[in-house]
């Protein structure tokens, strides 16, 4: 793309239209831009447009955003095949020109464009800095010095912001020589200019603040921003280790740091956002001194006392304020670091710990207006923080961390003081419950947060209070309160306590309170009914010492009707329509309780109507997953009890499932196939004609092309093959299935799926049905072996041959192969089976191939022939390697053997297995317990038939180590090869 008036005109028009409220011109502009983006020098042209003063600012802004995104996708295009269309990369000459222009353009741009270009620059820096962009840092430094001369803080902050983003990598990468070389380069070039600008700005702040009225906020604000950026850069450059330059100039840095912690700047801080600005600087300072405290405590020691007292007094003020979160959190983290360091004795003085507890911890743990707001307005976020550990940066949590930190060295003092505090809070509540309810909440929070986490995710223990007593006197009254909507935060805290300490509460007590929990499902507060559902769900998972569930179906069956009713009602509250806690609880209850038809009927009604709703717009993967699990477990349990219910389920579910199929709701297809499979399995033949329609889907190659569908389709195919082999064998359907196999197996990216199909067929059909197709199957496989031979394919082939052998016998295997080409079996054996066998991984696969291989050796006349003794020996050598050596010794770089079935429950491209619709993984050799034993016994039996023959073959063909291993196995199983 050439830079000329036409280009300028074209791009300006396009960017103008992208801002249009009309969809038509907007889409047209977007598509011409994305088409133009593939042309060389597009990025450069857009950058020039951004810099063109004659163009409207709005257009240039849109262009700047586009430029940044353009670089993101094309500077170094991703190699990930899962990513959408592969982008053509920007070429080197264009890159060089962009790199030459961008710094000066960024610095002269208006603030909004500057921030876009700064991000774009960071994108380049991430890949090219420093080695492929040696001019960047010198250019930044010289511009910084120039801007400093004229006190041009717009430019200064632009440069510092850029430096900050390119240096961030030093904060989380492992220390390698390469990283240190980069770091050293940055330090050599930037450490001194950084200090210079930091000190210059510091003195500007001092002089401005000293002037009448404390200086103008307009002047001061960019200065504070500048100092904050310097502090963040300081953090990055100091993260790996203490650089020499910073050690030499520690006094200068620390002097200013302390000033910002101890000085007030009333003219700026009088406004809320001004205070926030200065606080951000202070928070950045706190992070820096925490870093020094933790990693360079020896060099920092001299400054420690001053900083500790500065931070302490700062916190005493900040703790009382309801905003200022970030500062409170970083400041408390600093004290926590000190408390766990070798200098913890700072806390040992009389009265220090009580005072910290009183003036810092308690005020920060206490609920603030912001917390109440989140509780009401955004319950998901509240729960994430309060219950699921995403509270690492909340004041409440960090205040408790500080207590834990001090307790590392002063456990008894901390415990004593906190116990007293808890008592005080509870008495204050008792004196006036409705006014002082937050005191009680605070007490509950302290107990829960200071407890030690236990296995199972959310269970805990504590030695702070006597759990039983505390529960009875503090928690139970809340749970028994008749008004489910009064003081919802306190209720939520109480239920959370119940959930966390569920293992400690005895069964009769729990039962007494169970109706109350069920009642709280009807609370209006989203948090409260979510917590009630969560508590019930977790209670049903509690285990006794021996591993048995504490609460069984007979325990909860009496409550089930009302419980299910309240759970479905809870899903009708605003914003709880897709409440994952409630749905998970439904799943758990259905899994535990006895499912009679009285229960099944309303449940199936409730679940299908929800299913119909979410099909329209699947948005909450976790909720939907539990929904499908619930449906699956309901079907399975109800129909296992009463097979006549199958048709009722079919009647109510089919419409929903049909919708999923016909509207191609991608996210739900794997679920739908799994549910179909479950229903097919529960059917009694003959199978209803409705299903044959589904079967046609199985025969469509398109269904198989999406890897996320494949495991579910295999499962469904298995179900059909088992339940309806005749239907499969009609109207040429089997050859259609094999056609799918053929298509999938030819490409390395789908060959595994192809083998899934083939293995399912081979495993489930009689040899008589298969035999007409075998030549064709072998032909396909051999052709693929010739054209595209990969290790993965060879392994799949060995597994397939093994499966064939154990299902249909060695003779059928050898004969069908040799029917394609005379004697090809021995060629395949020697060239592929024997070398690949050693590489097999996976427990079931290993067992299958090992057993099949030994059966081949012991049963097949072809191999018992004396002329192939060497092959026989080599095969045995491979078998012994396979069974005697650990996997990592046999297999080098393991490529993923199975399609990537991730466990996470996001559902774009991954298959999510429905636990409750699943079958146990099939072991085709379930009757063989110990494959090693089987192998050794087979060998012993074989050798007994022709004594003297095999020991010689073994000596001649097995590796020394394998001979020893074989010997050891023999003596282990008390067998001999004679």
């Amino acid at each position: 793309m050439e830079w000329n008036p036409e280009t300028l005109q074209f791009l300006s028009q396009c960017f103008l239209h992208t801002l249009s409220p009309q969809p038509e011109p907007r889409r047209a502009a977007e598509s011409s831009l994305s088409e133009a983006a593939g042309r060389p020098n597009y990025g450069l042209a857009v950058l020039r447009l951004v810099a063109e003063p004659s163009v409207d600012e709005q257009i240039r802004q849109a262009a700047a955003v586009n430029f940044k995104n353009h670089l993101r996708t094309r500077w170094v295009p991703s190699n990930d095949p899962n990513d959408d269309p592969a982008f053509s990369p920007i070429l080197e000459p264009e890159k060089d020109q962009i790199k030459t222009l961008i710094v000066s353009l960024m610095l002269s741009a208006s603030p909004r464009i500057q921030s876009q270009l700064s991000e774009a620059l960071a994108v380049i820096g991430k890949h090219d800095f420093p080695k492929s962009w040696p001019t960047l840092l010198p250019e930044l430094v010289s511009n910084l010095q120039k801007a400093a001369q004229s006190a041009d803080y717009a430019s200064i902050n632009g440069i510092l912001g850029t430096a900050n983003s390119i240096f961030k990598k030093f904060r989380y990468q492992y220390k390698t020589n390469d990283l240190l070389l980069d770091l050293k380069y940055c330090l050599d070039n930037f450490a001194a200019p950084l200090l210079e600008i930091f000190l210059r700005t510091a003195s500007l702040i001092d002089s401005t603040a000293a002037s009448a009225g404390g200086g103008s906020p307009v002047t001061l604000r960019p200065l504070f921003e500048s100092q904050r950026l310097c502090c963040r850069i300081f953090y990055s450059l100091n993260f790996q280790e203490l650089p020499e330059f910073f050690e030499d100039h520690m006094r200068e840095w620390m002097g200013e740091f302390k000033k910002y912690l101890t000085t007030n700047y009333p003219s700026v801080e009088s406004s809320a956002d001004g205070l926030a600005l200065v606080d951000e600087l202070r928070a950045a300072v706190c992070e820096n001194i925490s870093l020094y405290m933790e990693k360079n405590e020896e060099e920092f020691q001299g400054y420690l006392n001053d900083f500790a007292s500065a931070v302490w007094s700062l916190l005493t003020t900040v703790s009382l304020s309801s905003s200022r979160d970030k500062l409170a959190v970083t400041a408390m983290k600093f004290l926590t670091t000190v408390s766990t360091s070798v200098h913890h004795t700072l806390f040992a003085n009389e009265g220090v710990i009580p005072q910290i507890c009183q003036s810092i911890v308690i005020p920060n743990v206490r609920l603030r207006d912001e917390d109440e707001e989140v509780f009401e307005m955004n319950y998901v976020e509240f729960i994430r923080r309060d219950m699921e550990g995403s509270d690492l940066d909340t004041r409440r949590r960090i205040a408790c961390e500080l207590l834990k930190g001090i307790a590392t060295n002063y456990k008894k003092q901390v415990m004593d003081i906190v116990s007293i505090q808890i008592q005080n809070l509870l008495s204050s509540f008792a004196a006036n419950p409705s006014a002082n309810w937050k005191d009680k909440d605070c007490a509950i929070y302290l107990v829960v947060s200071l407890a030690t986490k236990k296995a199972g995710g959310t269970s805990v223990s504590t030695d702070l209070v006597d759990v039983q007593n505390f529960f009875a006197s503090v928690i139970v009254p809340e749970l028994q309160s008749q008004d489910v909507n009064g003081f919802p935060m306190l209720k939520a805290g109480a239920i959370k306590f119940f959930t966390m300490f569920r293992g400690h509460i005895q069964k009769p007590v729990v039962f007494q309170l169970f109706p109350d929990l069920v009642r709280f499902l009807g609370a209006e507060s989203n948090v409260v009914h979510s917590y009630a559902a969560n508590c019930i769900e977790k209670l049903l998972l509690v285990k006794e010492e021996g591993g048995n569930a504490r609460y069984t179906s007979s325990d909860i069956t009496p409550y089930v009707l009302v419980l299910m009713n309240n759970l479905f009602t809870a899903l009708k509250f605003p914003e709880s329509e897709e409440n994952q806690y409630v749905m998970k609880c439904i799943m758990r209850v259905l899994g535990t309780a006895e499912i009679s038809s009285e229960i099944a009927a309303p449940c199936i009604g409730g679940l299908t109507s929800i299913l119909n709703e979410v099909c329209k717009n699947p948005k909450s993967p976790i909720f939907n997953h539990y929904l499908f699990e619930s449906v699956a477990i309901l079907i399975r349990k109800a129909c296992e009890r009463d097979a006549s219910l199958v048709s009722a389920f079919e009647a109510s579910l089919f419409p929903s499932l049909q919708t999923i199929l016909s509207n191609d709701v991608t996210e739900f297809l794997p679920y739908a196939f799994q549910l179909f499979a479950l229903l097919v399995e529960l059917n009694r033949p003959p199978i209803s004609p409705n299903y044959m329609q589904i079967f046609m889907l199985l025969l469509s190659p398109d269904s198989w092309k999406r890897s996320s569908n494949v495991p579910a389709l295999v499962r469904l195919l298995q179900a059909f093959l088992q339940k309806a082999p005749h239907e499969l064998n009609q109207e040429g359907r089997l050859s259609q299935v094999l056609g799918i196999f053929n298509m999938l197996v030819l490409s390395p990216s789908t060959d595994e799926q192809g083998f899934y199909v083939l293995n399912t067929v081979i495993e489930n059909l009689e040899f008589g049905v298969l035999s007409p197709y075998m030549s064709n199957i072998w032909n396909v496989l051999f052709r693929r072996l010739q054209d595209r031979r990969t290790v993965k394919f060879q392994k799949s082939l060995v597994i397939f041959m093994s499966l064939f052998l154990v299902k249909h016998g060695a003779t059928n295997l050898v004969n069908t192969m040799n029917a394609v080409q005379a004697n090809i079996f021995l060629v395949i054996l020697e060239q592929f089976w024997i070398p690949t066998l050693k590489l097999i991984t996976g427990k079931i696969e290993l067992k299958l191939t090992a057993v099949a291989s030994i059966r081949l050796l012991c049963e097949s006349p072809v191999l018992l022939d004396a002329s192939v003794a060497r092959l026989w020996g080599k095969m045995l050598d491979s078998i012994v390697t396979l069974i005697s050596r650990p996997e990592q010794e046999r297999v080098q770089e393991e490529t993923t053997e199975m399609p990537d079935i991730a466990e996470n429950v996001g559902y774009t491209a991954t298959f999510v297995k429905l636990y409750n619709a699943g079958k146990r993984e099939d072991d085709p050799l379930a009757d063989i317990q110990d494959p090693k034993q089987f192998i050794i016994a087979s060998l012993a039996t074989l050798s007994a038939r022709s004594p003297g023959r095999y020991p010689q073959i073994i000596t001649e063909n097995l590796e020394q180590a394998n001979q020893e291993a074989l010997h050891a196995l023999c003596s282990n199983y008390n067998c001999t090869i004679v």
Partner: protein
Amino acid sequence: MADDSPASHRRDPIKSSVGNVAAQRRRQNAVMVGKERRESLVRAKRLCRVGPSGEVDVPVEENDMVTDEEEFLLEAQTSSAVEELKSAIAYQRLLSKSEFPPVEAALKAGAIPLLVQCLSFGSQDEQLLEAAWCLTNIAAGKPEETKALLPALPLLIAHLGEKSSLPVAEQCAWALGNVAGEGEELRNVLLSQGALPPLARMMLPNKGSTVRTSAWALSNLIKGPDPKAATELIKVDGVLDAILRHLRKSDEELATEVAWVVVYLSALSNYATGVLVKSDVLHLLVERLATSNSLQLLIPVLRSLGNLVAGDSHTTSTVLVPGHEITDGVIKVLVKCLKSEHRVLKKEASWVLSNIAAGSVEHKQLIYSSEAVPLLLRLLSTAPFDIRKEVAYVLGNLCVAPTGHDGKPTLIQEHLVSLVQRGCLSGFIDLVRSADIEAARLGLQFMELVLRGLPNGEGPKLVEREDGIDAMERYQFHENEDLRNMANGLVDKYFGEDYGVDE
């Protein structure tokens, strides 16, 4: 790149789950970002206070600061002294008057060309000496002052040769040492001008002060990061013997300088390391460690020992074999260092031990049953962070055994159980909580051993009791992907909720 570059210290890439405790020897990173931890005696640049003739008695101010007034005076005097430079002595007096000689004024007045002239061949020894002396002190100044010596370098190098008198050669070596101490760029200039061989030859005789100065200058010259100079030095005929001889016999001050040479040889050059470990140097280092109490000597000696252990597997596989006398000797001196008051010694001794502990199972048993373990355990709970981290590497390595060629370690359950019983787990969990990602990784790796390796499923219970779950959960959203996956994987595997349990 043959075998002559410092092996970048990389451990096995961590695969799906957690991977292994170090189990590999760790070299110090070759790239230096931090301040070089050398005591003032051996710092990179040194002023020469006493004049070459020894007759000039320069009063040194008690207070190192020079007042403005004095400085002004000095500067004025300097300019006039340079003007009349025949008298290098006058200038020399001025330069040595204070901690901060008026170098700037001298340079401004054009001292360098005059000094170079004085260095020309055929000058009297006295004049050579004085000029070199002046240059030495100019080079001890700020970077740009050191750089000002560039035109003088060829002549300074030329005067190192055998034809020069010893005092002249030594003074030139000192000046060059200061130049080399300035940085990589000037080191490369010196190396390309051939400074190394004559300096190396100055180390050969038994002349105390000459050897000391040349060793110091060499240690500056071979600092790298390019290993070439170090390799070149060890290849110079007689250098290895000289090093051994001086380490065996010299006084502590000289041994200290020589030990620093060994530090850089062994830190940078695999070739030099290979040569050194096959010599007697390990014995000599151990001997020095056992007999000396000078911190200044102990630091480079200990560092050298550590480099030799980390740098060449020959050291642990052939020399420090369990059962050999020297191996017990090494453990003994390391225990001595662990007991020392000095933080540096404790840290470096732990580092050396961690590398020995990365050796064979026998090495691990030897350390495990030595006096070191109780000391290490105490350090793990009480020492400052950097020492704790090194100690953790030792203890971690004691618990894993390498199996065969692919290097994947398996557990040594006996060690693990006993160390955990003696309370080391909480120390590792503290590391998990630290901001240092290497330390955090180590902590997680050890936690994995505990979870997997303690008998009867005790591991999860212990980790739970020490609040380890909480420590791991901090990594739920960490920026370092590796740590995030490790921590999340462990929590899921050992503490995951029962999901989908029906009956």
